[in-house]
């Protein structure tokens, strides 16, 4: 347990909680790594950063990062984060959560926060299932995939998260896999330096639970899928950003400026106060 304190990123971690609970080869650790690397490269003011996470394996990430953090109920991190951001707009508020938490139970909160363009930054670990509870089907599980609740193969079409995010109004949308560590850090840095609702989907391996049931028994096998199938197509049509055994379209898809909710609110408040007797 004491070992991690020598690592250059130890100061970004709650070292008493390391090693983390994630399985060997799990992508969550890579996402955590990329995130703290972004904090390090930007020399972010750690006293003004809040990390909010949801329920799921990736939800444990908030507990590992040495900043103000909160682990909410299932699906509600974005709504909670909205309250934080509006109450204290000077804080950088980052939501780190999973595909089920953000897009099944939390789907409604995601689309509305994106629509409002609240300045929260969302990192989604998309591992195609509900890993923490043993590997049930989720809103991003591929067709015909085997999970504990689709023992005969999944008959539901999955979400295309970058399309959903773009259509909901997110002003920054990117997708990378855990193989694309440097691009992922670059996107996270971009998110931390911009305003408005920003979203990065990270295609992430869950070898112990998802991979094992779907012919990819190890983290390396899943990572090889990411490496071989990925195609970088920056600013291509989000609607066509598929994820399939043969093709994972990655890159940045949306990067636009639009007045944020906080900016509009502030402008309105100024207007109201000016009009006051």
């Amino acid at each position: 347990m004491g070992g991690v304190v020598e690592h250059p990123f130890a100061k970004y971690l709650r070292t008493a909680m390391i090693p983390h609970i994630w399985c060997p080869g799990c992508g969550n650790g890579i996402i955590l790594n990329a995130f703290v690397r972004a904090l390090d490269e930007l020399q972010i003011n750690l006293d003004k950063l809040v990390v909010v996470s949801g329920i799921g394996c990736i939800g444990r990430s908030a507990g590992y990062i040495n900043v103000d953090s909160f682990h909410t109920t299932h699906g509600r991190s974005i709504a909670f984060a909205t309250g934080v951001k509006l109450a204290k707009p000077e804080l950088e508020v980052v939501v780190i959560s999973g595909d089920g938490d953000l897009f099944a139970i939390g789907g409604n909160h995601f689309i509305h926060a994106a629509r409002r363009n609240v300045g929260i930054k969302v990192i989604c670990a998309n591992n195609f299932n509900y890993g923490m509870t043993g590997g049930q089907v989720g809103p991003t599980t591929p067709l015909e995939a085997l999970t504990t609740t689709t023992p005969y193969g999944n008959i539901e079409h999955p979400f295309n998260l970058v399309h959903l995010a773009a259509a909901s109004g997110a002003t920054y949308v990117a997708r990378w896999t855990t193989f694309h560590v440097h691009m992922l850090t670059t996107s996270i840095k971009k998110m931390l330096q911009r305003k408005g609702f920003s979203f990065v989907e990270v295609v992430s391996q869950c070898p112990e639970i998802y991979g094992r049931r779907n012919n990819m028994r190890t983290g390396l096998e899943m990572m090889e899928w990411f490496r071989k199938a990925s195609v970088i197509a920056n600013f291509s049509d989000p609607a066509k950003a598929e994820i399939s055994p043969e093709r994972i379209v990655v890159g940045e898809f949306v990067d636009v400026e639009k007045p944020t909710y906080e900016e509009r609110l502030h402008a309105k408040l100024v207007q109201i106060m000016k009009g006051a007797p």
Partner: protein
Amino acid sequence: MSAIGETSTNVEKAKPKAEIHIIRDHCKGCGFCIHYCPKRVLAESNEINARGVHPPMVVNEEACILCGLCMAICPDFAIYVREKRCMGGC
């Protein structure tokens, strides 16, 4: 690295040298660092760590180009690389 005021004309000497640090008991044996190192600097050791897996070992530190991929792709903060600091070349 040369002393102040001196310029090294020897390319080999000027090339940054790496120190690779492996926090052995943190490794969970995923193999990403070993497999994806572009210069085959690492290999699986025979040692068994506190987690019951074989952590990596450095087999060719000289070949390391400090790309940092191992450090970035490790899910467990079990490996990091630094540039060796030596005066007058390493």
